[in-house]
């Protein structure tokens, strides 16, 4: 029996299917994912202007709530919010309230008292943005900037934008995700997005210690041998390997991992000649990827960063739009009633 409250499945969507939070790609259909990509495309042009601003979030306050440190994700969210003309507050909670024993609920109450309109949340625990979305006052949008091992939906969408730019679409594509899938929120969101957008095959390539239980149920095939797994690939996505994995007895050594699962030119040559190489960053040269590949002609790693700003502008403006639409609908309903 499913105990889940049915309203939770639409936690991130308004009654008419608009985004109001952006927590996970689960439950978002192809049309909505495509709308996010199309909206991001329109914002790429903004980044190319000399005055890189649009007024969509003017007068709004966006709080970057980072319970886990991050440079790239936080700065691209900050830039995205500023290009949308929002006021931005960056809070590094690692070193503030929670270390003084304040509970997450209390921290939130204090931040809401500052009349914020949107929280961009990164947290080390899976589901933390869901918890926050359920706790905050209606009208405040929550954007997931990565939670535990669960989801990193803006990263996955910027990856999808990058793939679409280079491949034109998703039909027929063979995509591999290589490395530490077990601990990766990025991989979970990517697998979900690729399935929804119609990729022909998603392969995960890793040793059994770095794969979640029943990983095939997420919508992918499993390949332990990378030389076999590279065959016919259109896209290869490398995941970052944390050094702690050796201590947890998940891997014997970086050296062995690099030999078996690191991407070098030899292995890349086994893929389709136009295969693109992606990495969510920050990259570990010589651990999961060879420098010659990371900096080579097939690498699109830096495009991913540029696209990150456009994708984040897209989801922030769409979620705020959904919240606004919901608010005016409620006001209209009240006026009628």
């Amino acid at each position, binding site marked *: 029996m499913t105990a*889940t409250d049915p309203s939770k499945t639409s936690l991130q969507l308004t009654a008419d299917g608009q985004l109001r939070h952006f927590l996970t790609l689960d439950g978002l259909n192809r049309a909505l994912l495509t709308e996010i990509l199309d909206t991001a495309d329109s914002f790429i042009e903004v980044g190319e202007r000399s005055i890189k601003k649009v007024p969509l979030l003017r007068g709004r306050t966006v709080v970057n709530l980072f319970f886990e440190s991050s440079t790239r994700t936080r700065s691209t969210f900050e830039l995205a919010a500023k290009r949308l003309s929002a006021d931005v507050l960056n809070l590094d909670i690692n070193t503030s309230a929670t270390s003084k024993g304040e509970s997450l609920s209390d921290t939130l109450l204090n931040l809401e008292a500052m009349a914020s309109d949107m929280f961009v949340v990164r947290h080390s625990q*899976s589901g933390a943005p869901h918890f926050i979305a359920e706790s905050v006052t209606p009208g405040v949008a929550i954007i997931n900037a990565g939670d535990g091992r669960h989801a990193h939906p803006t990263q996955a969408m910027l990856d999808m934008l990058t793939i679409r730019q280079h491949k034109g679409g998703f039909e027929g594509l063979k995509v591999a995700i290589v490395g530490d899938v077990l601990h990766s929120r990025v991989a979970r969101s990517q697998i979900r997005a690729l399935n929804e957008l119609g990729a022909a095959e998603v392969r995960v390539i890793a040793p059994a210690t770095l794969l979640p239980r029943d990983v095939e149920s997420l919508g992918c095939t499993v390949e332990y041998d990378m030389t076999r797994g590279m065959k016919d690939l259109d896209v290869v996505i490398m995941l970052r390997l944390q050094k702690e994995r050796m201590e947890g007895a998940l891997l014997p050594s970086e050296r062995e991992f690099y030999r078996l699962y690191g991407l070098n030119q030899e292995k890349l040559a086994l893929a389709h000649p136009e295969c693109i190489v992606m990495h969510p960053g920050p990259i570990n040269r010589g651990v999961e990827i060879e420098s010659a590949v990371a900096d080579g002609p097939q690498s699109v790693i830096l495009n991913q960063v540029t696209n990150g700003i456009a994708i984040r502008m897209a989801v922030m403006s769409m979620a705020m739009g959904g919240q606004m639409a919901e608010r005016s609908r409620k006001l209209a309903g009240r006026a009628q009633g």
Partner: protein
Amino acid sequence: MSSLKIIGGRLADTNAETTVLVRNGRIAALGEAAGKEPADHDFDATGCLLTPGFVDLCCNLREPGNGQKGNIASESLAAAHGGFTTLCASPDTSPVNDSGAVTNLILDVAAKRSSVRVLPVGAITRGLEGELLSDMAGLAGAGCIALGNGARPVKNARVLRRCMAYARTFGLTVMFSPENQALAADGYAHDGLVASRLGLLGIPEVAETAAVMEMLLLAEETGVRLHLGQLSCARSVEMLADARKRGIAVTADVAMHQLMFTEDALSGFDSRYHVRPPLRSEKDRQALLGGVRDGVIDAITSQHQPHDSAAKQAPLAATEPGLSTIESTLSMGLLLVERGDLDMGSLIRSLTGGPAEVIGRSAELRQGAVADLCVFDPDATWVPNDSSLNSVGRHVPLPGKALPGLVRLTLCDGRQAWPQSDL
């Protein structure tokens, strides 16, 4: 003491109509004989079912020491509301129930404030640390009916073996929730489809099954009477059945919520369903139901774990495990019967005679027996909410839903435990 005659109800297991006469704390007469005798009060049980009072092998009362989560008065009243008359109180209190003095304290408070019978389970290791033996004989002497390590693990197999051998010396029953600490590690959800999708840290089945196997082997060797509490895996039920065939003195229970829910309950990160052991797969649920139907699993427990609301108000991993279940246990059981997952006979046996036997007691409606009984209307519904619940813990399963099974009367030792008001 005045006498009470319960008229017009049916026995829950056989569905036969009967009359029960209660006098001086005991069942003075049953059936036609009871019908003929006069009584000070009559209770009209038309449309209701009668059962012995339910016996709970695993219940957290939170007293002493955790008043913000519950106390003996609040949780025993909640138990009476749920039809329970006997509670085995887990030793995970503060201080831990690892000495006769704490046991006496619990029994003293219970004598003054409890609505139902409280039977403490003593800590088998000092402070539940899993390292040093507690004064087991002293605990038993003070009134502990069994010994266990609560929700905490015993450090290693050597300590476990000595715990069992020492308990065996005095003929004591040991109760353990099997979990291999190294394999469970930091997990908090079933290592399966939902945990993989949501990125939750998993507790694999083998964390339970490896511990079950170890405990069965040690029980066989030491000859102790072993009770395995709160099983969650299909494979554990198989091993239990095999051990019984070999003649090992082992009994077992399952929490009602394990029969009701699966890992899917966590798919919206709902922290109320963060329980330990975790809710597992549908295959496991089916095997556990089979175990109850076949009698391989002796008892269904509430595994009642009341908490203050803050304990559940956090991201899933940061919340405390446990559901507040004791008021909904019967209702969940009736839902299972309604759905054909369980038959009424198995349900009632697993809540009464089954658990009673595990602790060497009996629970039956017969002439001369202690008047512990429950009268409930299986067709009337109630809604768990702030006004209906008595437990401090409000993180109940199926909140706000109309649940079948309204308890009209609970008698413990012939005294009215529920409702609180006069009939």
